[in-house]
Every structure is written in structure tokens, then in C-alpha cells.
């Protein structure tokens, strides 16, 4: 689960990590008031969306007066911001973050991730801040420092000093860097986060470290333990079909092809998409109905898949282990009757209660295209497109 920059900074502030003075605004008037409260002569107005590259897309604006702050807030709020990471459709901006502009002397990168191969929380740091860390890693691998953290020990000060010294945070900055890293690690561990990124971490004014931009993402399997983090969820940043699907216990991801897929199990769902692709078709979605799929769940799956106007044929592929083919078949028949589905439906059933499932489909008298196996199903689905 991703959260906004202003939320991340709120959280970091609660861990005593220095962040710029500022607050979120959802109207231009509020933005102006915040600028007045902060005081000073220069401010920055930052569009709040769950995508990076905002600077390149015009989503970060400098302002020299309160009127200027209001003007930028007014222009940003309500627009669709297109950045290198949003795709061509962009993201709808509902809020901005108004902050005091900073006098930046030098920029660094500091991140925490969970390294899959090391199976540890790992700190990533670089003297090259303000840039995409993957680009830095690709072009200047020696400029990216990685340190895995032993979960039994936590993050000891010496390890932070090692990192700080390698990226050139020495002198009076070193002790600030150590505290900041330890606090960030504590926050990351306390909330079972998956990713935290301060980019840039900057030296501002006379020798002060500040988290100028920050983002975090959290483990969907753990957030329910932390109501403060759960409250940060922004449904407007999620695909409404995916939100609706998850409400029905379905895992749905929209793609851009024309073969609607309804499958049990994530691996088989991907393999079904692959088989369709192999036969020169294109899947319209990933959809995993999971285990224990009731007739209602199957009917809901049809409803969600058919909301996509690009869907021209549906392929249902169930290999029932915990699931039952008879329940699935009942759901398919219900969906066909209640939803007046006109698109061709290819059905492949296998596993638990297979015979009962086939009988239900046959007795319904509905025009299913039945398939014997995965290959047959994918081929028939692609043929039905023509």
C-alpha cells in the first residue's frame, strides 16, 4: 500500500526525522493560509499523487508570494498530472503539499527495502541524490552503497557511520545522519513497511540534514495491525474495478487485451494469460478467484470482467483443489442467465467434482464452448475472437 508524500512526512516527523515545515491543502485558499503560517519568502507547492517524476510533469512549483502559492495550488488541484510514471492517462490531483522552499547545498539518496536475495532489510545510500536510484545503480554502481541489517541486532550506530562516511556525510553531519538512519529504520520496522525512500536527503542552510522528499509503501498483509497507516489509504489512487474485486475476495488487475480471464490461483492465472498470448491473443485482465469459490463469487467475477468494454470473449479456467467444479459451474450458469452475457464463454474445468460440474453446464442448455485442457481452452478463446 502506497501513501502520499505529505503522509510520509507526517509519519517521519513523528519519529523526529527532520522534514521541511509544511502541510497538505485541498483548496487554493487553504494553500495560501498554510504559506502565511509557515512564513518566509519562498514556498514550494507539490502535487500529491502516488507516482514519481512529478517535477518533470510540472507537479512541483516554486512560489515567491502567497498569491503565487494560491495560483499554483489552483492550477494543480483538479488537473490530471502526467509524469513519466503515470502513463499517458495521468493522475487526478486532489491535494497539494505546501512547504517552505529550501536552500539546498547537496543532495543524497537514502532508502530502505527488503532485499529478496539477502532476505534482510537493506539500506541503500548514495552520494547522488535527487535522481532515480535505479539509473544511478545502472550507470554508477560504485556510487550505490548497500548494507543489510541483522534483524536480531537492529541497526547499530557503527553501521550507520560506515554508510555516512562512504557517501561523504562526515564532520558534524555524521551524527545527524546516524540518528536519522536509526529513526528511519525504527519507523520501517515498527510499521512493517516494504519500502522507504528519502530522495533527496539534503544538506540545507548551514550543515543541517533534511528529508526534502520522501515516500513509503507498506505491506498489505500487515497494515491492518496499524490503524494510523490504514487511515492513509487513498482509494482514489486505486483502480475502482480492483477495489470492487477485492471487496468480493477476488484479485483483479486490468490489462489491455480482449480475452477476459477468470482463473483460480495466481500461478495458473498467469499461465492462462501466457497460453492466450502464446496463441496470439491478448488477455484483458488477471483475475484469481482464490480458493473456496462460491457460485456468487464466480458470478461477481463475470460482472467485474465484463465491465471492461474491450472484453470480447471470456475464458474460465478452473483447476479445482480446494475449489469444487460443481459450485463453479453453478456460478457460471447463474451469471450467464442473470447477466445476459452475449460474449462467447469458454469453460475449462478440471479437478474436484469435475463430472458434476460438466453435467450442470450441459443440463443448462446454454451455449458454452467447453475445453478439455489449458491449450484447448486458450486456442478456442482466441478463435472465438475472430
Amino acid at each position, binding site marked *: 500500500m502506497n501513501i502520499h508524500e505529505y503522509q510520509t512526512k507526517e509519519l517521519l516527523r513523528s519519529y523526529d526525522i527532520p522534514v521541511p515545515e509544511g502541510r497538505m491543502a485541498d483548496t487554493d485558499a487553504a494553500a495560501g493560509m498554510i504559506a502565511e503560517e509557515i512564513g518566509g519568502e519562498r514556498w514550494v507547492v507539490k502535487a500529491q499523487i502516488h507516482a514519481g517524476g512529478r517535477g518533470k510533469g510540472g507537479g512541483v512549483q516554486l512560489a515567491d508570494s502567497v498569491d503565487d502559492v494560491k495560483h499554483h495550488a489552483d492550477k494543480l488541484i483538479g488537473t490530471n498530472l502526467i509524469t513519466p510514471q503515470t502513463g499517458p492517462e495521468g493522475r487526478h490531483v486532489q491535494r497539494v503539499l505546501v512547504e517552505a522552499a529550501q536552500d539546498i547545498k547537496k543532495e543524497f539518496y537514502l532508502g530502505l527495502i*527488503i532485499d*529478496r*536475495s539477502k*532476505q*534482510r*532489510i537493506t539500506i541503500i545510500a548514495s552520494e547522488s541524490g535527487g535522481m532515480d536510484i*535505479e539509473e544511478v545503480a545502472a550507470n554508477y554502481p560504485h556510487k550505490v552503497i548497500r548494507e543489510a541489517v*541483522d*534483524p*536480531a541486532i537492529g541497526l547499530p550506530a557503527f553501521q550507520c557511520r560506515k554508510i555516512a562516511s562512504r557517501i561523504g556525510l562526515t564532520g558534524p553531519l555524521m551524527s545527524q545522519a546516524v540518528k536519522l538512519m536509526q529513526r528511519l529504520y525504527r519507523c520501517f*520496522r515498527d510499521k*512493517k*513497511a*516494504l519500502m522507504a525512500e528519502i530522495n533527496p536527503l539534503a544538506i540545507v542552510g548551514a550543515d543541517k540534514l533534511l528529508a526534502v522528499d520522501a515516500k513509503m509503501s507498506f*505491506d498489505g*498483509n*500487515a497494515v491492518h*495491525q496499524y490503524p494510523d497507516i490504514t487511515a492513509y489509504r487513498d482509494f482514489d489512487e486505486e483502480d475502482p474495478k480492483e477495489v470492487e474485486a477485492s471487496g468480493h475476495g477476488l*484479485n483483479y*488487475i486490468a*490489462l489491455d487485451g480482449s480475452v477476459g480471464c477468470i*482463473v*483460480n*490461483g*495466481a*500461478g*495458473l*492465472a*498467469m*499461465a*492462462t*494469460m*501466457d*497460453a*492466450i*498470448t*502464446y496463441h496470439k491473443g*491478448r*488477455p484483458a485482465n*488477471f483475475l*484469481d478467484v482464490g*480458493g473456496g469459490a462460491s457460485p456468487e463469487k464466480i458470478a461477481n467475477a463475470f460482472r467485474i470482467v465484463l465491465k471492461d468494454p474491450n472484453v470480447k470473449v471470456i475464458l474460465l479456467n478452473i*483447476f*479445482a*483443489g*480446494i475449489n469444487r467444479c460443481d459450485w463453479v459451474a453453478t456460478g457460471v450458469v447463474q451469471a450467464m442467465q442473470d447477466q445476459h452475457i452475449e460474449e462467447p464463454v469458454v469453460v475449462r474445468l*478440471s*479437478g*474436484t467434482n469435475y463430472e458434476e460440474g460438466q453435467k450442470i453446464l450441459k443440463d443448462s442448455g446454454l451455449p458454452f464452448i467447453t475445453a478439455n*485442457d*489449458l*491449450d484447448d481452452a*486458450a486456442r478456442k478463446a482466441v478463435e472465438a475472437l475472430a
Partner: protein
Amino acid sequence: MSIFINKDSRVIYQGFTGQHSTFHAEEAIKTGTNIVGGVTPGKGGSKHLDRPVFDTVADAVEATGANVSGVFVPPQFSADAILEAIEAGIKTIVVIADGIPVQDMVRVKRYLIGHDAMIFGPNTAGVITPGECKVGIMPANIYAPGRVGVVSRSGTLNYEAVAQMTALGHGQSTSVGIGGDPINGANFVDVLQASNEDPDTDAVVLIGEIGGQQEVEAAEWAQENMDKPVIGFIAGVSAPPGRRMGHAGAIISGKADTAVAKMEAMEAVGVHVVRNPADIGTTVDQALKG
């Protein structure tokens, strides 16, 4: 012969008296699995499915000599249950739950250092040696005793592969699910190594998916160390980058972990790579004849 579990395994279920656990324990008992008891905290001293229930894994191990555990507790309690099993000296721990926080598994993997236990999962359909022992949620009737090892991340894709193989007369020595999570216990290399040492396994089917580099590392290991054929498939050719495809671990985060890049890397080190997931069975057939 087989790997990890067999007819002599002494199996307990943690979360034994729960609904799912009960159903799958009954199924396992039907197929000959030697379930010697189970653990449900607070219900120690009672009986379930004619077997003793214990409050702790340590009690169960002491009373029954259990050496395998199926962890059937909900995801928020799974890490604790795994730690308990490791501490009690269980050697083979199969973790079914889908949805264990990643950082919980970081801690579990740290605790595993210095302990002689192997974890399968989390988020696995389990491990089965057909005809001898089943610890998991897979439908036993699609498996058949035989001489091909199977190792996969996904459960249902494992069923798909196994059904294709069984239909062509290729039974399985042991089929292992290592799970769909980003941080898991046994990896592909652990399973290949055991399969390589098993005199009754002639070939191994390795079914992976997008995300991470475990499959490629396993293929490289196999080229160095194995003389048995490896048949490989990576699910997710059609998956877009940056989207999590159901499994927490199935997400393309860089060029190297796309399905195509992984399949090419595996092919380059001698794996029989299957491009169409419907051809897993026939590729096994050809590899064994070739």
C-alpha cells in the same frame, strides 16, 4: 524413495482443530499420511480425529516423536508457529498461510540460522510424496507415484503440470511447493539438490514465475551440479511491470526478472524451457526420452 517426506514421516498439524486443518488432515490420513497428532493451544489433552492434541509443539514432539509439521494457523500467527516448530526441533515445516507479513519472515529466516530445519512456504500448496505422505492442500488424486520431481511456487500451476504429466504416464517422486511469497524457506536450489541426490528421481520440473532471480540461480546451479534433466517454465510472460500478479513475490521490478529474461537465462544453461504452459507434460516426456 523420495525427498523431505515419506511413509515414515511423523506428521503433526499446527492449528490442528481448525476447520481447514481438519479437512486437510482427514484427506491426508485417507492417502496414508502418518499424522501422529496436532497442536492447538488451550486444547492440550483432548483428542481430534482419534489423535492426541497438544498445547505446544514441544509437548507434541516429546510425546510422538514428530519430525514434520503442517502449519495451518492464520497468517498473523504463522511466524510465531514456525518459530515454535523450529525451536521444538521439527525438521520439515510446511507453511500454508497466504498473507504472512514479509518482515515476519525476515525474522523467521534469521532464527533459522543455526537450526537444522527446512521450511516450505509460506503460501504453498504443500509437499507430497504420492502414495506415502501428503502435507498440504493439494488434491491427492491427480498425483501418481513415479520418478519425476516437481518444484513450483504456485499451487494450481503445480496441479496443472502434474495433471499433464500423470496423463502421459509420468508419476512424481516428490512434488514440492516453495510458495509464492518474496521471502520463503527452501528455495529452488535446495529442492534440486535433494532431487539430485535421490536415486529414485530421474528428472525435475521447475515451475517459477516473474519476480526475483531464484529460478535463474537454480538453473545455473543445475548446470554445474546435476546430470538429471531439468524442465522449466516461468509464468507471467504477459504480466506488465510493476503490478503484483496475485503472489506477493510475483512482481516485475527490473529487466532481469521478467519471464522472458528468466526463461532465456535458464535455456542458456541447459534447462528444457517450456514456452507454452500447456506443453509441460510433453516436454517432460521428450526430455526423458531424449
